[in-house]
């Protein structure tokens, strides 16, 4: 039976997700709109205040964390630097300072690469973009108006419309991400289940689980978010059915309920790890040079990053590497052809 690879769309979308994404997005829109350069600008403090509020609310509402692990702290550090420098790049009047903030964006993105186990990409990006940024500096020094205010730097084209366009896109992306990958609801339900497992009498178990209708509805909504064909989803639904059968309003059998609850807990943990996953089924053939298949939801990358990346590039992606080389050659010739001075009168 062919298995669909695509995620089933979440059927119901709670309004909580809408507000959690709308607040930081609207604050960010206000901030960027106020800070974009224009001849008689708004005082920068208002924009800075809105930007700070947007960052803090995004950190609270969109970023999931549990406790300060080193990785979490570094993630916050690098991502805050990246986002703030990106905002400065967009709103900066002086092109030299804009190029400097672009350097900051690249450096902090490289930090995030390193956190995601991509050391070779980090080094390559730093080396390549260092050259690119130096060349950009040269261009700024060569071409930009050095004194006074110019039309190019002090004005924006349609600041309101472009801000709305950009932040509408961002809001849509964040909403989809939030409703697909957020595990808070499932974690709450699993905590409830754990609490219920510690009770002894059937009545206490039911009390710990809370409202019957609400509990089942929330759990079914979570099950609908899993790919319907996946193993995790099937397990979750089966466990829910068991529990519903065992749940009698006048008490019921505590052992039976607990067995169902244990199964539900295991299936829920499994489902959480597979959440929003497009992991292809294990029997699909995947090149052994680009991946090593391990059973389990979160396989690890090989430790020797450069060796494996090189082997993957020169086996699976050999044709693409050749094409990339050709593209570089063509681009070099094109750049020379475009920028070469032509003889007078030939334009």
């Amino acid at each position, binding site marked *: 039976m062919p298995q669909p690879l695509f995620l089933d769309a979440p059927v119901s979308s709670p309004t909580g997700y809408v507000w959690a994404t709308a607040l930081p997005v609207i604050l960010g829109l206000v901030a960027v709109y106020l800070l974009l350069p224009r001849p008689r600008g708004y005082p920068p403090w208002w924009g800075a205040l809105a930007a700070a509020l947007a960052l803090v609310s*995004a950190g609270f509402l969109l*970023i999931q964390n549990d406790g300060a692990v080193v990785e979490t702290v570094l993630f916050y550090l690098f991502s805050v630097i990246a986002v703030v420098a990106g*905002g400065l790049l967009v709103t900066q009047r002086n092109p030299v300072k804009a190029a400097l903030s672009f350097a900051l964006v690249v450096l902090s993105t490289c930090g995030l690469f390193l956190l995601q186990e991509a050391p070779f990409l980090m080094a390559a990006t730093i080396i390549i973009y260092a050259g690119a940024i130096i060349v950009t500096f040269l261009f700024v020094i060569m071409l930009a108006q050095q004194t006074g205010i110019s039309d190019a730097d002090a004005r924006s084209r*349609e600041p309101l419309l472009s801000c709305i*366009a950009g932040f509408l896109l*961002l809001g849509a992306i964040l909403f989809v*991400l939030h409703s697909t990958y957020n595990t808070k609801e499932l974690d709450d339900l699993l905590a409830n289940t754990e609490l219920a497992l510690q009770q002894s009498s059937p009545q206490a178990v039911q009390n710990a689980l809370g409202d019957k209708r609400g509990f089942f509805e929330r759990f079914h909504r979570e099950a609908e978010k899993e790919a319907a064909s996946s193993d995790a989803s099937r397990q979750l639904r089966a466990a829910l059915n068991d529990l519903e059968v065992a749940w009698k309003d006048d008490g019921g059998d505590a052992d039976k309920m607990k067995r169902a609850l244990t199964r539900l807990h295991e299936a829920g943990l499994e489902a959480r790890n597979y959440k929003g996953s497009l992991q292809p089924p294990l029997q699909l053939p995947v090149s052994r040079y680009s991946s090593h298949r391990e059973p389990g939801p979160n396989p690890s990358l090989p430790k020797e990053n450069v060796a494996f990346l090189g082997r993957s590039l020169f086996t699976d992606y050999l044709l693409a590497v050749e094409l990339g080389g050709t593209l570089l050659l063509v681009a070099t010739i094109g750049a020379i052809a475009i920028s070469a001075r032509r003889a007078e009168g030939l334009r």
Partner: protein
Amino acid sequence: MNPVAVLENYLVVGAILFALGAIGFLARRNLIIMFLSAEMMLQGVALNLVAFARHRGNLQGQAFTLFIITVAACEAGIALALILMLYRSRHSLDVSLWQDLREAGQEPTMDEEPLPPEPVSAPLPRLTPAGLEPQQQEETSHV
């Protein structure tokens, strides 16, 4: 922390970088800043791919990011050559000077508000001449 939450965090940062770059490309008028904004959009996408590579435990995402860097380098070369050519013919980096390339039937955008006057910097102090002016030596020539 569970791996799905980690993945979502990185995707959020990538989306924010992408959207900020899009706004910069649409709103700014300096050609060099537009170019930098486009590069920032590419950084956001690369971050997404690297996060997915980590999440799924295979190297396809990282290999793809390497190709993104290649294409970005080509784009940078061509873009800077184009900026140089555009600057030569209009003597400015303002992209609105090229709005005669717009579609037929579109109104040109005019800048109504004048730019603020340049801030006048304090004049440099003039020192009063001190000392004696050296005497001009009469040029005498006995030819």
